């Protein structure tokens, strides 16, 4: 049985930290810590906009193709039209987002996560 401060005002009464390493209240303390807050903020600041961007970009492609096919028929050069370029650009944007996330996470997320993880696991004598 542990006692802890509910984080978001949710009046949870019992916590049963049986599974996993460490007590549940320990995790709540970590979650409230400044380092973890930084990880969460950084994660959200990349992943949120990136997800919004690729989903909007993809559905723009689908919706234009379905409801404004005339635009897709506009020729870029010869038989290559806007629609075909748009389709290939979907691939390019997917590769670009994947590569930039991988690089970004390695530099901006991993060092912080490692530091916090070592501190947590070290503190418990794992």
């Amino acid at each position, binding site marked *: 049985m542990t006692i802890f401060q509910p984080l978001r005002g949710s009046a949870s009464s019992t916590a049963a930290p049986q599974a996993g390493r460490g007590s549940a209240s320990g995790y709540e303390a970590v979650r409230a810590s400044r380092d973890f807050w930084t990880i969460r903020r950084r994660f959200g600041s990349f992943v949120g906009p990136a997800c919004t961007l690729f989903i909007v970009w993809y559905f723009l492609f689908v919706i234009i193709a*379905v409801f404004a*096919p005339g635009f897709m028929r506009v020729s870029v050069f010869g038989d*290559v039209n806007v*629609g075909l370029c748009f389709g290939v650009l979907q691939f390019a944007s997917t590769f670009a987002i*994947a590569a930039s996330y991988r690089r970004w996470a390695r530099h901006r997320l991993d060092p912080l996560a490692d530091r916090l993880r070592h501190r947590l696991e070290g503190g418990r004598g794992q």
Partner: protein
Amino acid sequence: MTGPTATSTLATEVIGTPALNFTIFAIFVVVTLVIAVSVARKNNSATDYYAGGRTFTGLQNGVATSGDYLSAATFLGTPGLIAIYGFDGILYSVGFIVGWLLVLLLVCEPFRNTGRYTMADVLDLRLKAPSVRAAAALSTLMVCLFYLLAQMAGAGVLVSLLLGVNSSVGQDAVVAVVGILMIFYVLVGGMKGTTWVQIVKATILAAGTVVTTIWLLSRAGFSLPALLHHAAASSRSGTAVLSPGLEYGVNTVSKLDLISLALALVLGTAGLPHVLMRLYTVPNAREARRSVTWTIWFVGLFYLCTFVLGFGAMWLVGDKRILSAPGGSNSAVPLLADKLGGTLLFGIMAAVAFATILAVVAGLTITASASFAHDVYAGVLRHGEAEPADEVRVARITGVVVGIVAVIGGISAKGINVAFLVGLAFAIAAAANLPSILYSLFWPRFTTRGALWSIYGGLVSSVVLIIFSPVFSGQGKPLGGTSSSLITDPRINFAFFPLNNPGIVAIPLAFFLGWLGTVTDRQPADSARFARMQVRALTGVGAERGGRS
């Protein structure tokens, strides 16, 4: 008939040399069987059987994941759709690559950090409820079975084209052989053997696709505009194939159908259980991220090649000939290979197609067997108290049962357009799995009731809408020139739901039900569990590591 090669006996036409095709395929089978047996020596712990000992590198698992993802339905179906519908086939294929970003950005690392073997592990860490584990296992099994059915149905159709087996009994026998081989891989090789089968298969698939693409481009003078020009010139629809509208732009229903399919594809990838289970075969979340990035490169490269192959088939084979061939639109790639490289290339592509079916069904079978043994048997029936050896034994038995069900299903589902069934599996994955995964990872208030409502809501609405859709009854849509309904008798029609894909209704409904079930739950969320979930998800504390790290 279009050309001098077309004859009146197209339906019984045999291209290539069945003996050669069979030999190439047999080499693949022998090589992969040797690998499965040789990696199987140490395969008794649950981690070995379910997760290959967590020793694969990001690159290895990335290749294996693309092997799991690129099914025969994709390899044959997508270029086929492009060869017949042109641009609308591209529209269909883009969703398959874009959906991977969701896996990379939101799912792969938290998922690897908080689970052990299955999707239900992740939900269990957050909610600790056997009912949720059972629900997650049920939806996992349903997605696997739908996907398996698609693969096995494809196997039967392919046989007539590729091996010259035209008798119904002969086709059924080949489906049964595929089933027996797959059971062997899974029983003997476990996840390690299955992963190596995927790696071998993905490599020959990539090699075959890239070589054929380059070959084709050389015929067009390495000029894409020239290829498109030739393709449009030989299509019965002319330059209209290069812009949208042939398949999906017919009326409002078909437009909505495309949006529904797009939604299912982009959100479904992150809910496919056999893709998610792959994340556990690497030592840590960082390797999981690396492996998903590799998968994006491989899958993307493959789909870019399918554009060229699809338009190439339109140009060199012609849509009329493809549609009248035994496999319908699925025969575009084999016919193109025959046109380009004669019997040898045809044989190689036929063998690649079979290897693809075999590897994908093995991956699905091990996922289904892991979910049943780990979640249903050990987690629910034994309340988490089962001996690991016992659990693995149950997993092996389940693998055999799933294999038999797949063979029976594959034999009875012969003749359905395979690409469609994959779309349906994606819809269930997106509606039943994804909402609860995302909510439990990122929403502090999410409760057990919300999870149950969203999983069952997504599952039931997808399945019910599929049953009352044109895919099941009524005349269906003439894809590949024939009825795509499961019930081919046009007099039986209970297709009250007009769309072929239930995603546009089922996915928002499942997200809504997850929210509604949570906010109306009198039992509040356990904030301590959420804190543990989120700290573990983002830092990797307490995650099970692999042999190398």
